[in-house]
Every structure is written in C-alpha cells, then in structure tokens.
C-alpha cells in the first residue's frame, strides 16, 4: 500500500479510470417494469473519491453492481481503464474483479467458514500471487487496520466493525484500480463508522480510486464528489468543499440558546 502520492486527475477521456455511457437496467416484476438505472452517464478519474447518494430504491446499489460486473446492464457501455467491459462474459468479469476491482458490501462480506486471514488472502491466491507474498501482504494490511490479533477468528466471532475492516483489507489486498463499496458503514455504530471512514480517507490519500454508495451524509462529505441518484437518473453531480465563508461550524446548524 505504498504509492508515491495522489496522482493528478487526468481530464483526457481515454485516461479516465471509469467511463459509463447511457447505462440502463430495468427489473420486471408482476408485469410492471421498474427502472433501476436510467440512461446514466458517468466518469470517474483516477484517484477520485466519489460518493453516490439517493433515496432507497433509487438504484444506487444496482449501479454499483453493474459497474462491478455482478449484474448485466440491459444496454449502455462501460469502460474500465480504457477497456470496454460491459459485454464481457461472467468468467472474464470474475478474472477482472480479482486484480482490478475491490468490493465491500453492507452485510455478510466474508465467507463464513474461513478465518479472517483466509478471507483476506483469497483474492490474492485467486490472482496467482505466491502464497508467501499473499501472506505478507495480508499481515501488513491487518496490522494497519488494527486486526492482527483477530487473524485466526471466524467471521462469526468478529464484531460488525471488525468484519467491515477485514472486508476492506480483503478488497485492498490486490491493490485494485477501483474500490467499490455499497453502504460500507450502513450497519455500523458511529464509532465504527468513524474508524472505517478514517481508513477510506487514508486509502484515498494514497491515490486509491473509490466509488461508494451511502445514505450517510457524513460519509458522503468525506468524498471529493457527490452524485445524487434519483429514480435511476443522476439528479446532481457536484464537488464537495469546505463552506465558502470559512464556516462549517455548529452555529451554522444549531443555535444554542440560554
């Protein structure tokens, strides 16, 4: 995890990390069609940290699954690192996911019958990394996340926050180009949320491209950019910065009386 430093975001379209054109995905249930993703265009540059917000049912998770190849779009194109990926067969997607994409979900991120250490090493072994190297990287990551003493525990013995941190370690072990996270703090209390957020920020500082879905404003505000998804369409796409007047204090929200 030692990259030289955040690389400047490139503007040339061929060098975007992720490019999406006119993505459509619909679900048919009981005769009615509901649009999960409607003609979405998106571009994420290398090193960007993007958050996707929106009411539930707006299609945020579906979009993330489409970008990670876990689901197939009905139409549209996806380019990952300059390569067209939306028409890849499932097995090629799986190979792509091993090296280039890290996934963190809201629940049950870990394989239930393997220890935390095995869980973290799994993508590395899959990608063909020699076992010794995989083990070294795993130890490095777990130590950095403060979980070295829990390496031999099964997921059932870990708390929610610990599980998410292990999941994060697993997602990062192959130094993926893109980290996709679906409500990674959704089931955590505020302290664990803070810890996971801190980790994500640190990854971002080292140049990791992150795309995460959240309904938590605090998580979203950590990102560089927030995309609002509403009814399957992008309603807003803007950068996050500190308030102009040097504000952003409690007084902007709450006035203490008395």
């Amino acid at each position, binding site marked *: 995890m030692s990259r030289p430093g955040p690389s400047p975001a490139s503007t040339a379209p061929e060098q975007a990390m992720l490019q999406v054109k006119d993505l459509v995905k619909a679900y048919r249930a009981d005769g009615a069609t509901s649009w999960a993703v409607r003609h979405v265009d998106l571009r994420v540059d290398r090193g960007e940290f993007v958050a996707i917000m929106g009411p539930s049912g707006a299609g945020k998770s579906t979009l993330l*699954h489409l970008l*990670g*190849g*876990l*689901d197939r779009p009905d139409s549209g194109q996806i380019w990952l690192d300059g390569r067209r990926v939306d028409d890849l067969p*499932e*097995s090629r997607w*799986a*190979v*792509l*996911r*091993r*090296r280039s994409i890290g*996934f963190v*979900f809201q*629940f*049950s*991120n*870990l*394989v*239930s*019958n*393997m*220890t935390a250490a*095995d869980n973290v*090493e*799994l*993508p590395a*072994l*899959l*990608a063909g990394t020699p*076992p010794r190297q995989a083990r070294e990287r795993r130890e490095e990551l777990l130590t950095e996340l403060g979980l070295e003493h829990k390496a031999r525990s099964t997921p059932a013995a870990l708390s929610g926050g610990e599980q998410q941190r292990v999941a994060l370690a*697993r997602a990062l072990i192959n130094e993926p180009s893109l980290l996709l996270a679906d409500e990674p703090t959704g089931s955590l209390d505020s302290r664990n949320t803070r810890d996971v957020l801190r980790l994500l920020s640190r990854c971002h500082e080292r140049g990791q491209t992150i795309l995460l879905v959240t309904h938590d404003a605090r998580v979203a505000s950590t990102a560089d950019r927030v995309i609002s998804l509403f009814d399957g369409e992008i309603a807003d796409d803007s950068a996050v910065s500190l308030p102009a007047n040097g504000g952003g204090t409690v007084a902007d929200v709450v006035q203490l009386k008395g």
Partner: protein
Amino acid sequence: MRAVLRWEFADLRAHRGQAALMVLVTAVITVSLILANALLQNAGNPWQRTFGQSNGAHLWLHVRPGVDTAPLARLDGVAAVAGPYRTAPSTLVRSAEKVPLELRAVGPALPKVSRPLMRSGRWLDPSVSNGVVLESSFARSMWAAAGDSVTVRGLDGATHTMRVLGVADTADQGAYPNWTPGLGWVLPSTLGRIEPDPSHTAQTVGLRLRDPATTDFTAQQAVTALGSDQVTMVSTWQQVRSSMNLDNRLLGLLLAVFGLVALLAAALAVAGAAGSRVLAQVRDIAMLKAVGFTPAQLVRMFLYEHSALAVVGIVLGTAAASGIGPLLPSPLGEAMTFWQAQPDHLGALLATGVGAVLTIALATALPAWRAGRVPAVPTVRADRPVRRMSLLARLALLLRLPPALVLGARDAFYRPLRAGLTIARLAIPMLMITVALGSWATLDGFRDHPERVGLAATLTAKPSGIDAASASRLLSRQAGVAAAYPGVELQALVPGQTTTITVRGLGTVARPYPFALAEGRGIQDTDEAVAGQGALDQMHVKVGQWVRVMTGGTPRILHIVGRSIEPDHNGEMLSVGMEALEGPVGLPQPQYYALVLRPGASPSGVRAGLLAASHNQLDVQLTTNPADQLGAVRGVVIGLVVVLALIGLAELVTATGSGLRDHIRDLAVLRAMGLTPRQVTAVIVTSTSLLTTVAVLAGTAVGVLVSDRLINLQGHASGVGAGIAQMPPLGTLLLAGTIAVVVAACVSVVPAARATRARVTTALSQF
C-alpha cells in the same frame, strides 16, 4: 488452484459431520457392490475352472445301446468326442440311504475329453476289479471318501461291494442332489459284472465343440443324425453351469440389482445433500463470485469436493471389502477368496471404484452447475408471499390442538414443491426396504405355505423292494398322511429337439395332485398338462396351446391348460396325470409317492412311522425346499436394509438441515412472540416427522406394488414362474414405518434444539 483448495478445506472442516456421513454411505455401497461382483464372478467360476481344466465336453447325449455314434464325430463344429461310454443305472446303498447312481464305464486310461479331475485318491486301477471313482458332489453328500466301501445294487437287485478309489470333479453334469442321478466311473469289466444285461445299459457321448455358442444347433443336428427315437437325453454346458451355480447366481444377481439400485439411491442422497449445501451457502457463493471466482471454477470446486469425498469412501470400502471380505461366512467369504485369486480381480475392483466415483460425480453435477449459476449480487432473501392461515389451520387451533402441531404442519407443506421433493427422496429408501421385506416374506411363504409355491408334498416315498399295491396300502394306513399321489418322472425330447425336459406324471385325473396354479386351470382330462414357466419358455408355447413330446420313444400330444409354479429343475417341468403316460405296457409303475400330510402332522414323525411300518422298504425323504438353499438371501436382505437405512438417514439429515434453514427466521419470530424454546423445537420436529410420515406411506405403498412385480419378474426369469411373490406382512410394514418416523423425530431434535437456543437477536439480524 490454491484459492480453490483453501476454500474446500475450510468448507470440509465446517461440515465435518455431513462429510463423514457421505463417506460412510459411499463406503458401505462400495462394499456391497464388490461383494456382489465377487459372487457373480464366482458364480461362473467353479464351473469355468473345472470345464477348462478337464477339457470338458459342451454337449452330452444319452443314446440307446447299440446305436452307432460315429456320425457324431463328423458333425460340423465338433472338435473332439468323449466316449461313447456304456452307462448303467444303479442304486448306492449307504446305511439307510438309497440313492440313484449312474455308472459309466471308462477305460483304465483317463479320458482326454472331459477328463475327471482327481480331488483325492487315485483313478481306476485294473488290478482293483471293484473300484469306483465317485463324482465329488455325490461323494460329499454320501459322506463317501477315498478308501471307503460302498454297496451298489444293480437293476436285478444283486448287491456289490465296491471300493471308492478316488473322488473327482467333472463338468459333465450339475452338482448332486440338484442333478440326479449321481455319477461314478468304473472299469468296463466292472460295469459288465454289475449290469450283465446289455439292454439295460445305455451309451453316453460327449461332444467338445469348437464354438460353444453353436451348442444348441449341434444338439439338433446330433439328434437328427442319430434319430430322435434313439436319443434319450441331451444336456448342454449351459444347463450344467446353471445347475451348478443356481444358488450363487441368484444371490449374486439379487445383490447386484440391489447394489446398483442402492448406488442410485446413494447418488440421489449425495445429490440432495450437495444441493442443500449449495442453498445453504448462497451468500458465500455470491461473495466468492464478487471476489473473483469464475462460475466454472465454482462448479469445479463443488465437483472436486464431492468427488474427493466419494473417492475416500470408495477407497475405504474397497479396503474393508478386500480385508474383511474373505473372513465373512460363506458363501460370501468363499466367493471373495476365490475372486481375489483371479488375475483380473484388480481390474474389476478398479472398474467398480471408477464406476461409483463417476456415478457420484454425475449426481453432483446438477447441484454443482447450480452453484455456478448463483447470482453474484448478494441479495437479501426475497420475502415469501404471506399466506393467511388456511381454514384447516384455523379449525385446528379452534379445536385446541397444540400450537406446535399446527405450526409444524403448516411449516412442512408451506412450499409444496420443496415438500414434494423431500418426500420423494425420503420415500425411495423406504420403497427399497419394502421390496427387501417383500423378498423376505416370499421366502417365508416358501417355508410356511409350501403348497402355494408348488411344494404341497412334504415327503416323498420311494418303494424299494415292495410293489405298488402294498406301498399304497401302507401309505394310506399311515396316520398323518392326508393323501399319497403316485408319481413318475421321465425325460422327454421337446419339439425342435435341442434339449430335454422332465415330464412328470403325478396323481390321476380322478385324484389330481394339488399343483400351485398361477394361470389357467388344473388337469381334468388324460391329454391335459400343466407346465412350469421354464418348460413354457423352452418349448416356446403359451398356456392353451398343444405340444408334442417324446417320452421313451412314444410321442404324446398334450394340451397345456395351466401354468404351475415349479421351484425345481428351473421350472422345466411338464406335469400330467399318470394316465397320460400310458404306454404299451399299461400305466407306468409309480417311481415314488408324493405325500401330503395332514395339518399339524410332524414330517419327521410320519417318516419314522413309515420307515418302521415298511421295514425300510419305503425310502422316505423330505422334499427339498428352495427356501433352505436360499437361506443366505436372508442375510443379504438384512444387509441391504441396513444400507438403505443409512441412506435414508443421510437423506433425513439433509432434509432437516434444509428445513431448518428455511425456517430459521420464522423460529426466531416465534420465540420473540412468546413460544417457549421447547415448543419451537416441537414445531420443527413435527414438521420433519410429518414429511417423513407421508414419505413412509408413499414409499411403502409404491414399494408393495413394485415388490410384487419385481419378485414375480425374477420368478418368471428363473423359470420358477411368476406368482410366488408374497406381500410383506402389515405388522412388519407398520413397524418399519413407525421406526422411520421415530428416527426422523430424533434426528431433528438435536439441530432443532440447537437452533432454538441461538440468540433471538442474532438470528433475526441475519436477515
């Protein structure tokens, strides 16, 4: 690859119990398949060995004395000729036993074709004028060994003391007493002394063919060449072999059929367990896909895992069979020992193992393919459509039935398709157990109701030294004898003249013998006959047709009016009234009397009484009951029931596991609602027990039907005749079913208790 292995080891470690059960089931199946294989192989082996070593003759013909047998050597396909040898019928007397013995005159040199294989003692010696070499099965049943003295009585009644010079194996005829008369070799001079009248002797010729498959054709040609009225008996190597190996072959076939079906049932169980594992791990599989496993990798993973378990089970089973097999009681132990001595037994072992692995791999293919198709999106489980409580359930609650019962019933049949599949899978072992019980009941039927399977006469009395009139007087006076039917057995050539069948005159038209009729009706006229299935097959006729047979040179035209069940002689028996066999000298003398005893009379008591009353001039024997020889089948049935019970247990464990998984959320909700843990456990146990009950009922019902069909089919095929099948007694079926349901309840209690003890919050939060 490493990732795959890592996951597989973790998975096996997490499901140790299930894996062990699968290995056990596979091992047991393998053992039974190997034993069946050994028995089947052994079935052909003793004959094969003997025939090969003795340079056996494929075809034996008995012809009248004086017939020129030279044309036989010139027949197409004949490689060598044994004989012709003069033969004479005689009786061997040994203590109180008098048994028929055919003496064959063979020169002092050992014959080249069909050479007797000396087991003990030595061959005929010209210096010993009264020497005889006995065939080994005959010698064994007579307790005669080399060096003993035996008394042989000729047709004229004169007795001769003979010395048993040796005991030899031969492939000329079947084992005594299945095949009578027994065989003994003597010097021509000895034969001349015992039977001085040439007209009482016969000739026997053996033909060794170049191609064994042409035996029937050659037989036909031989009879034609010599003239059908000159040939009294024809026997082929197939008849000899089947006679020698009757018991083992039946046993082996039974085992093989059941073993194969058990393998199928085990494959189903494995498939079920694998499928249920896939369902249980849907989350994990989705995660693996998200991490980067390709669907093909997932499919391979499942296949390897289950195939590996199967291989372990097969290796264990093979080791157990090879090590413990020879130590089992015979015939299994004997068969295993022989089989292991065969050069190609390793090949057969390998073939069995590979076959079993392939079957299990095939069974796992579908669940493995489904594992590959699990969607990568880790969805929260879709809610089942909520159904309001049915009218039945509401009624039950109104009647104040315990809530556990009502909820359990509702749970069990909530998803009809799933419930149906579970019931089907549980019903199959039950079905097979019922068939096994049916076999047992059939054997019991042989024992308890012999008259229903053609064995109405418990005793057979042979007059020796008294005439027919005094014999029948003695018999009718004997207490305990309900009826005595005179009988005579002759060999007859069938149309097509390729072989001979036995024509039995038994009873008279006025007092017909109570044959066990499966079809048609009994004999009511002098030209009517009932035939066994084997005879019908051999003559290629059906009930209602007319046949022409030759008995002792006299053609007879008979109308087959019924099919009887004939457990002897492979069912190749045509039965007529004594009048039908009337010849130029009148009615034939009865060779024996079939005695039907009064109910409650003791066979041994009646026998003793008759022997005393007739001063040993009546030779009284118990009729052989095939059930006695098939005693080993009972052991096989027990073994099979055990195997099937194991398979059923495996299926139960799978069904319980998947049932629990389906309802674990409901359980938590129930507990949160206020049901005590014990009540919740009761719900699960009720649900499993109900499913098992339905499965037991279905399996038993279908099993009774199938058992009937199968056993009758087997009877038809073996010539005994369809109609022997007995239904398993209701009490046994009820007991088996009850045990199954109780076991199901017990199996489900432990995991149910464990599931309900899990914290409510953790269970709910999982979803």
